[in-house]
């Protein structure tokens, strides 16, 4: 591969490094010392990225297949509530409660997939509707308040006391797994084909409907795990948690080289994209910028980053 090809591949990483350096210097100049690149703050960024990153694994597969899932933020909130309710009201131990929550996430995704393929309505609309339904379900299940079960093993998924908590390891292992599935399995290649050209995939006998349902269900499972992460950060189920998370997740996938037209996405890129998004948010708060400034900056950087990436793509290819 030539230099240009590598530049296209490493683009998101270069962007991450640039944003990182920018805040490192900016925070240093403002506070007079390095308070950005400290172990503690880096850990915070990593943990915040883990939720987005986990959901982004599912979104990467869905976007690769030419779809989109707007209901992911709501699914994360719902599954965090489900885990909390199972432990508090039903008295389930942490592990079965976690499995139950992940399963609920999978069911949400399955519903998305079945509705999209059976009703033949575009994923944008179906998952927009499901977004509202799941958010409502989460609030109803939690009776419109946070659910706080007794301390359990689940709290340690994103535990600050260890350098790299189990959740981050889990993310790394699953990311590797998704990468392998994408590259080396028939299902993975079918996702590329369906996203790249659905008509060609149909001609070749790819089971379009089944593949789509599977990918949304899989996305739901990842949202379920992200819901557990969400739970463990505060050790409670919060039905109003993760508002707009799906947008951060989509931004992460797209910044990482994913194409909303389908057929293109990369796990590593999406994870870098998740770090990118969280670095911006963390950096802005380290700068003591007000929340509204952070949002404007984040929005502008998303547009800039993706526009630059597309420009490089056109030049590079």
């Amino acid at each position, binding site marked *: 591969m030539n230099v240009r090809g590598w530049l296209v591949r490493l683009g998101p990483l270069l962007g991450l490094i640039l944003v990182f350096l920018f805040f490192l210097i900016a925070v240093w100049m403002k506070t007079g010392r390095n308070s950005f690149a400290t172990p503690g703050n880096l850990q915070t960024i990593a943990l915040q990225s883990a939720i987005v990153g986990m959901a982004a694994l599912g979104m990467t597969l869905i976007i690769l297949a030419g779809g989109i899932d707007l209901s992911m933020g709501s699914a994360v909130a719902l599954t965090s509530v489900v885990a909390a309710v199972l432990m508090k009201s039903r008295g389930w131990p942490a592990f079965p409660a976690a499995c139950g929550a992940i399963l609920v996430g999978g069911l949400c995704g399955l519903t998305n997939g079945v509705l999209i393929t059976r009703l033949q309505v575009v994923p944008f609309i179906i998952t927009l509707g499901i977004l509202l339904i799941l958010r409502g379900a989460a609030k109803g299940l939690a009776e419109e308040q946070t659910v706080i079960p007794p301390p359990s093993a689940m709290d340690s998924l994103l535990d600050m006391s260890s350098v790299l908590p189990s959740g981050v390891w889990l993310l790394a292992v699953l990311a590797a797994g998704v990468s392998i599935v994408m*590259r*080396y*399995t*028939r299902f*993975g*290649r*079918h996702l*590329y*084909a369906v996203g*790249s*050209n659905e*008509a*060609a*995939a*149909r*001609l*070749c*006998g*790819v*089971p379009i409907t089944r593949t789509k349902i599977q990918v949304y269900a899989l996305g739901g499972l990842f949202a379920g795990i992200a819901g557990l992460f969400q739970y463990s950060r505060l050790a409670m189920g919060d039905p109003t948690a993760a508002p707009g998370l799906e947008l951060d997740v989509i931004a992460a996938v797209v910044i990482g080289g994913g194409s909303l037209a389908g*057929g*293109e996405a990369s796990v590593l890129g999406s994870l870098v994209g998740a770090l990118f998004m969280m670095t911006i948010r963390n950096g802005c708060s380290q700068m003591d910028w007000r929340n509204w400034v952070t949002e404007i900056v984040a929005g502008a950087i998303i547009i800039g980053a993706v526009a630059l990436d597309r420009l490089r793509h056109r030049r590079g290819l």
Partner: protein
Amino acid sequence: MTAAARLEMTGVRKRFGATVALDGVDLAVSPGECHALVGQNGAGKSTLMKVLSGAHAADEGSMRLDGVPYAPRHPLEGRRRGIAMIYQELSLAPHLTVEENIVLGVEPSRFGWLDRGEIRRRATDALAQLQHPEIRPDVVAGRLTVGQQQIVEIARALASGCRVLVLDEPTSSITQRDAEQLFALLERLRGQGISIVYISHFIEECKRVAQRYTVLRDGRTVGGGAMADATPAQIVDLMVGQKMERLYPRSKRTPGDVLLAAEGLELRRGEVLGLAGLIGAGRTELLRRLFGLAPGPATPAESWRRGLGFVSEDRKNEGLALGLTIADNLTLSKLEALVLPSRQSSATRRWTDALAVKCLGPFQRIADLSGGNQQKIALARLLHHDVDVLLLDEPTRGIDVGSKAQVYQLIDDLVSKENKAVLMVSSYLPELLGICDRVAVMRRGKLGPARPVEEVDEHSLLLEATGDSAA
């Protein structure tokens, strides 16, 4: 030509890259004349229309409109100068009403507000002029029949003050009754001094509506004159020309047992069966039904399992996933649960070597290959799957002559050496005659009998495909 000509085209040439689409076209149409433009598929009719409308600029040659030089830079300019095109695919906005469609782009308005009364008046006038007051101006266009939509398009042309009306295969998608109405309408328009260029494959139909004709072949004007002086057979002779090419290999073939019997055709091992006919006659649909891409008994996945393979006529949108690699495209129909790059690569290399595909390697993006090489990959997918029956829809469309020869050789090898069966659709008759063992003609959705290739020639096939008229 005389100075009285409404439209005059002389020596028009147009090339796209290495392909010469128009190679010297002369055409003259008088006011109040209906002029038939005929030619085989690919003779250059659509390119000529595009040059006339302003969608393409001619490389050489000149055009005059009522004696004034005419060289439109874009379709809007052509429209302003009075050239109106009615394409085979109608171009009404289906959600707008009839009157909104008629004034589309030239809406009368006052300070940006639409003048509804004026719109209604113009639309009603145009429809009355066409003697079709039964089409209500406030009806949504999408709810009209195709025949009525065509009339609305003509009304739009009139409302924008057209002097030359160009119709491309106007009867291909309307009923016989609508066609009768259309013919009467054209007659009236002629009476109003409007010139009509009538493009059609149906020679009987042309004889009925047109006073004069021009025949195109291989991008050139090869003949023309008064309709009354010509028989359909003479016109077909001009369309066919005297070309005898021998780039079609034909080894000894021995037809075996029947592999496919459906839709009124029988396909045997070791033979190539060709489907001739006009574009839109239903050949592609037949092939898609057989394979399961159009509603039918099978799905594509089942067809592949039964040993059928299909090559689409639309390489870019359906045949190949252009964003993916050569290897993915080639092996997509037959992926193992675990996709090992080494095996994918060796399988791909085997076929790229066998078919002499020019590429950098199995994992090159297929979009970077030439059309001919892309088509070889689309065919190689069937070889890799090792199907028995190959359904090929326009397998040599848009590829260079060298690749064509290779595809012909491949088809011949497949039936003579490997005992496969090939069913192919082609709009290029010499090709069908060159490589098929039997040829059947499809006309307006109906399949004719399959005849041995020795018993047919271009002339008879073309007559069978075009002989029946809507009139």
